[in-house]
């Protein structure tokens, strides 16, 4: 069966981003960009399913400016077979991304679509659920275990109270949590091979999707800074401060 994986280009998780001084946007000039960590886990899961013989083809999709081809190439180096870029320089919101993915799902007819549960820039945690709604598929979000059996997939989900397992009819959507797997590193030969794998580009217009934003960011600002406090000398001083100064115990 075929799997579609969504990979997003985001600011690397080690970078501490800051709002621009005029508060119009986040300053992402010259910062390191990477594949969203949750998307990397999505690719890894697809590759493992292929290694188990469950999956025959992995298609990696990314939406965004030309540079997001780098993240598709990363996915290809990790084991995806071909890539599709939906090229646009416009701001993309999750509903628009979900609609583009839905159009690609209609064409490619994958049995499984794997996405990250959230991207570490927008922190929306929406796209997978919205794609599942638009495609009329079941959704296994925040997955820590995925088992495909004929015609269905069992997904163990990380929920507030612990773990929940659901069974979904295929085709279905899965979004990854951190503990689903530990992604491998791409080897140099695989990075070289990835350069020759097919990568098609299309656009939201070609897919017939209206990506006009529905929300507008009026302002971005840093959160209220916490002042570093004091160092206490020992446990006795700590307990005394918590009792008489902070009054929290």
């Amino acid at each position, binding site marked *: 069966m075929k799997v579609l994986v969504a990979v997003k280009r985001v600011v690397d998780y080690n970078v501490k981003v800051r709002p621009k001084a005029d508060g119009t946007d986040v300053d992402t000039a010259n910062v390191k960009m990477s594949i969203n960590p949750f998307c990397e886990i999505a690719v890894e899961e697809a590759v493992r399913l292929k290694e188990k013989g469950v999956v025959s083809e992995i298609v990696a999709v990314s939406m965004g400016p030309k540079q997001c081809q780098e993240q598709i190439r990363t996915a290809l180096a990790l084991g995806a077979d071909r890539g599709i870029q939906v090229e646009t320089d416009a701001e993309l919101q999750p509903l628009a991304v979900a609609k583009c993915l839905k159009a690609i799902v209609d064409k490619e007819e994958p049995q499984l679509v794997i996405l990250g549960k959230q991207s570490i*820039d927008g922190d929306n945690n929406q796209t997978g659920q919205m794609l599942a709604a638009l495609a009329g598929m079941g959704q296994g979000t925040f997955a820590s275990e995925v088992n495909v059996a004929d015609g269905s997939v069992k997904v163990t989900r990380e929920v507030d109270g612990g773990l929940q397992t659901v069974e979904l009819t295929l085709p279905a959507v899965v979004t990854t949590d951190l503990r689903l797997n530990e992604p491998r590193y791409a080897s140099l030969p695989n990075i070289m091979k990835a350069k020759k794998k097919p990568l098609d580009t299309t656009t939201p217009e070609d897919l017939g999707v209206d990506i006009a934003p529905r929300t507008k960011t009026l302002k971005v600002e840093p959160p209220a800074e916490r002042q570093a406090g004091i160092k206490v000398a020992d446990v006795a001083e700590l307990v005394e401060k918590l009792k008489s100064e*902070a009054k929290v115990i």
Partner: protein
Amino acid sequence: MSILVIAEHDNAELKGATLNTIAAAKAIGGDIEVLVAGSGCGAVAEAAAKVEGVSKVLAADNAAYEHQLAENVAKLVADLGKNYSHVLAPATTTGKNMLPRAAALLDVQPISDIIAVESPDTFKRPIYAGNVIATVQSSDAIKVISVRTTAFDAVAAEGGSAAVESVDIADDAGVSKFVGEELAESDRPELTAAKVVISGGRGMQNGDNFELLYKVADKLGAAVGASRAAVDAGFVPNDMQVGQTGKIVAPDLYIAVGISGAIQHLAGMKDSKVIVAINKDEEAPIFSVADYGLVADLFDAVPELETKL
């Protein structure tokens, strides 16, 4: 304006997160109605009717909603949501799973995890692990919003007397099935609602050593949390993870033990009123947000803390 709040519950009990979400609804202003979708959830609907500020409770009691399967509940929420200006749910794993699905069915771009209401169409929400706060305005006719519960003080659970109306829609999408669950049993308070939280990180070395934290927690009536590193290493289960991709907590007192203070961890606890850090490395970034820092070996400091409390 009329606002539909989706209740968080387990068919037996109305969860506190609902009260924080109703508080956000009050900040928006307008008529507040609560949807209780579940199975055998009559007691929950009764409890919701007593909440301060609620004008009506819609009870959708059907087997299809028993386990809050998003495929079924989202359809119901989209069906009902058409009649409201706002649809709100707490940003719990249940809310985050269901709400975007309902929004897509309504052709709405939802707004996740709001921490403040600026006006009925404008909200603040954290992005980039809380390093940036964005003010966003929605142009959709229906605003679909998940609420960061720690950012809104709960409304009173008593004082209201709303009518309960039953809803006869049985949406079963037929594409998903509940198989089972493993829920953590604990006598300690819930992480996201506790007044005091004590969390352990990789510095704890193993799961058995968390016993040190449980002892302190029991003296303080605290919940116990963990860093991702501690969860990944298998010291404790995933539902204890605090951070950008775990639970967001904002207790009166947060005690971080053997946690370095990565931004992803800080994202989950830096709104706590008072932060204490115990770490043997005086350069650890956690000290830059701690009100009280103790540079010490945790295996000396934590047992001593327990005896001094």
